[in-house]
Structures are given as C-alpha cells and as structure tokens.
C-alpha cells in the first residue's frame, strides 16, 4: 500500500513538472494560442465548454461500447463455430487476419457512405476494428484444451455440447479477456475514426471525433486539446474496465490473477 502511494506521488510530481514546463515554454517562446495553447487555457476550455465536452464524450462512449460489446458477442460466436469445425476454421481463419490488417481509416469513409450517418455506422467501425482480436484469442483458448481433460469428459460420455460449454468455453475465458483487453483500447480509436467521417445532425454537436474536426477547422486549439485529453482518458477507462472485468471473473482460479487487486 505504502509503495503504491509513493509510486502514485512520484507520477504526479512528474506530471506537475511537465505541466509547469509546458506553461512557461509557451510564454517564453511566445507561441500564439491557436498553435499551442498553454495548460491554463486548455483547463479554461474544459471548464467553459463542459456540457459540450461531456456530450461528445458520452456519444463516443456509447458508440465504442456498442462496437466492443457487439464484437465480443459476435467474436465468441464465430470462435465457437471455428472450434467445432476444423475444416471451416482452416478455411476462414486467414480472413479474420484481414479484419486486423485493413486500414480502418481508409474504409471508414466507405462504411459511412454505405451505412449513413449517426451512431450505428460509428459503432460498426469500432466493431470491425475490435472483432479480430476477440476471434483469434477466443479460438485459441477453445482449441487448446489439455488432452487428459478431454479424455475425462469422454469417459463420462459427454456430448459435444457439454465438451464445448463445460470444458472449452471456460478454458477459453482467460484468452477471451486478453482479446477484450486489446479490443477495449482500440474500440475508442475505432469510434473516433468513424466520427471523423460521419457527419452530424446538428452543427457543432457530435462525438469526440466530430468535435475534433470541427474544433480544428475553427482553430479552437484549446478546446481541441481538451477533446484529445478526453479521448485519451476514455481509452484508458475502457482499458481499465476490461482489466477489472478480467480480474473479477478470473481472480478466483486463474494463475495470472494471483494478486488481490487489479494491477
């Protein structure tokens, strides 16, 4: 506990130093506010436009959460099918890698063009970017079951479904959470990329991605900084929630979660 306190304190001191440096650098070098605002104008922008900021944050959170949740449901379903039919897995698995390698920034405009504006196309982009890690990790966990455990189930004349849901799926839980951890960070990135291209129903109101393009076009650089800050915090929050869920579901039995607090 004491060590963690000192660790936190040291991190905060580093942050304070960086903010001070930033503050005086902007003044000393006489940089205009629209190119690089100091920490104080950014803080003021947060304070003055808090309702707008929270609104954007909420919209992006919704889209990212929808995409991530959808990718978990769909990814686990695909993995379950892959685990059951080896031939199908070998046939289609390479294509799930395409999901990961396709540049999301390049296909985002296409998806917006096909699916229109609004929250759902944005969630769809987050979904696409999240899907591959979930499928790959969960499939890995489903198919790498210890042979003796499989034999144990066979000795009890277990059905295919019993093997799948009482052995393979629990065995894949640690892998699924690795997938969720990877996807939780990129879900926010996916949603913001989507919003960069999605138009909004009302001028000046939209998710973080939309607000970022708008603020940069208006040269509201201080607000732009506030938005970037919010996006970073949101990504971190998603990642942390993923970690917490992993700890919550696995800490009782899994070796990787021996400690009593999330790391």
């Amino acid at each position, binding site marked *: 506990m004491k060590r963690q306190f000192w660790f936190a304190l040291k991190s905060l001191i580093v942050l304070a130093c960086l903010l001070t440096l930033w503050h005086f650098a902007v003044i000393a070098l006489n940089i205009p506010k629209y190119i690089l605002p100091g920490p104080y104008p950014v803080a003021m922008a947060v304070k003055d436009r808090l309702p707008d900021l929270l609104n954007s944050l909420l919209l992006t959170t919704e889209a990212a959460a929808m995409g991530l949740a959808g990718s978990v449901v769909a990814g686990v379903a695909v993995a379950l099918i892959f685990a059951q039919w080896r031939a199908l897995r070998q046939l289609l698995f390479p294509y799930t890698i395409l999901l990961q390698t396709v540049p999301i920034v390049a296909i985002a405009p296409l998806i917006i063009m096909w699916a229109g504006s609004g929250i759902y196309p944005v969630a769809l982009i987050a979904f696409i970017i999240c899907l591959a890690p979930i499928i790959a990790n969960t499939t890995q966990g489903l198919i790498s079951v210890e042979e*003796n455990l499989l*034999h*144990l189930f066979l*000795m*009890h004349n277990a059905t295919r479904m019993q093997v799948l849901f009482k052995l393979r799926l629990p065995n894949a839980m640690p892998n699924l959470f690795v997938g969720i951890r990877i996807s939780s960070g990129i879900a926010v990135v996916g949603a913001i990329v989507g919003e960069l291209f999605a138009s909004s129903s009302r001028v000046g109101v939209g998710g973080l991605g939309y607000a970022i393009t708008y603020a940069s076009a208006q040269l509201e650089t201080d607000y732009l900084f506030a938005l970037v800050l919010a996006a970073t915090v949101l990504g971190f929050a998603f990642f942390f929630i993923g970690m917490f869920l992993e700890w919550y579901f696995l800490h*009782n*039995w899994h*070796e990787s979660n021996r400690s009593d607090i999330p790391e």
Partner: protein
Amino acid sequence: MVSPKAQNAVAEVAIDGVSKQFRSGALALRNISMHVEKGEFVSLLGPSGCGKSTLLKLVSGLTQPTSGAIKVKGITPVQARELMSFIFQDATLLPWRTVEQNVGLGLELEHTARQIRKEKVARMLELVGLTHVATRFPRQLSGGMKMRVSIARALVSRPRILLLDEPFAALDEMSRDRLNEELLRLYTEHHWTVLFVTHSVAEAVFLSKRIVILAPHPGRIAHVVPVELPWPRTAELRLTPAYEHEVARISRLLRSVQTAQSEASEGGIA
C-alpha cells in the same frame, strides 16, 4: 438363463491378442492377452515405452486396438464406460471449478439431479477427508490434495472398475504412501476391479494381487507374477522382510527385462 459357471467364465476385463500400432507406424503393443478377474487388483509395471499407459487407454476405450479384442464385462469398452473410472497421472482438475464442483463433474455430465448430486459429493468428500476444502479452488491445494480430489471424482459415480495411470508419480514419497494406504482401504471396502499402471516396484508390490511386467519395443507381456503377501495389507507391511523380499524379486524380474532390451539394441547396432 445363464449358468453360474458361464457367468464366471466372463472375465471382468478380457484382453485377447491385442496389438496397437500408432499412426506414426510405431508398434506400441504386440499381441497382448490377459484376463483380469472380478475384484482383482492388477498392476502393469514396466520401463517407459512399454505401452502400459496405451494398454490402459485401450481398456477405457479412449483409443481402439489395431487388432485383437477387448471386452469389459463381456461388452465393448465404450459401452462399459459407465462402469469404469479413469484416474490420470496429473489430477486433471478443472481449475475454474471448486473442489466440490470438480468432484460432481461426472454426475453433472450424466444429468444426475442436483439434490442427489450434492448429497453424493458431500458423502464422498467426507470419505476422502476433503470436506474442509470443499469450496476451495484447485490452485489453492497441494499436489497430494489435488490427487485426492481426483480420486473422489472417480469414485463418486460408483464405478466397478478403476483404471489408474501412474496416479501418484508426481507426488513425494510420503504423500504417495499415504494415498496408497487409503486406496487399499477403499479397495477392501468396495471390491473394485483395478488396473493400476506404475513404474514403482514398491507401489506395485504393496497394492497388487498380481503384477504384469511389460517389456518395451514393442510392448509385450514379459512376466505375470502373483504377489505373495497376505491381506489385508497395512502400512506395517512395508517394514516386514516378506515385503522386502517381494520387492527384490520383482525388481530383479524388471531389471532382466530392461537388460534384455539393452542387449538386444546393442546387438542391433552391431
């Protein structure tokens, strides 16, 4: 109407002319024939590569013989699975289940009603002295405790035949001795038919009525030796000269198998 004589004629486990060739082409077992009587405790002893674990997997129906036939109570191993329990070398517990959930696994897979399952599991945990760790997870247990859970899981479905594949190989000697004694105690109470794979002579002598010594490359039966020690057997037996004598006798036989093998392989090189 089957006459008593005909019933006796059906061995509990009948292995007749069984050979097993792996897909790689290696011959694991060649022409194995042995019968195990009801209530008999038979150990399969031999150096590594003699196919003793493969033989056990064949009896359990987890793999099929290349030629020959195996009958368990006169039916095929797969049909007879409900009568058999398999205890693996590692405890092979499901790490996400508590001790009691692990013990209840078989009953759960066989759709035993929850209430009956709970009662049976509780009784079994008491029998093997695990009641105090019923709600723990496997990773919180020592190796010996895990093995106990594994045994409890095998016994809870009331098997008639027990197949054990080097169950205590990974344990320290003290835990191994204690579990041997406990296994014997349960055996004398329940009169299972037991096939026990081991590479420990002392363990085989202490537990068995009969020891089958296998020779490797390819796996074949080298000796069938009845153990000439009185029943019931207790921990004190290990301290008697008769026991030492039996261990020495079996060790010599086992060594002769290994020497013959190394001479044969040297001859092959020359």
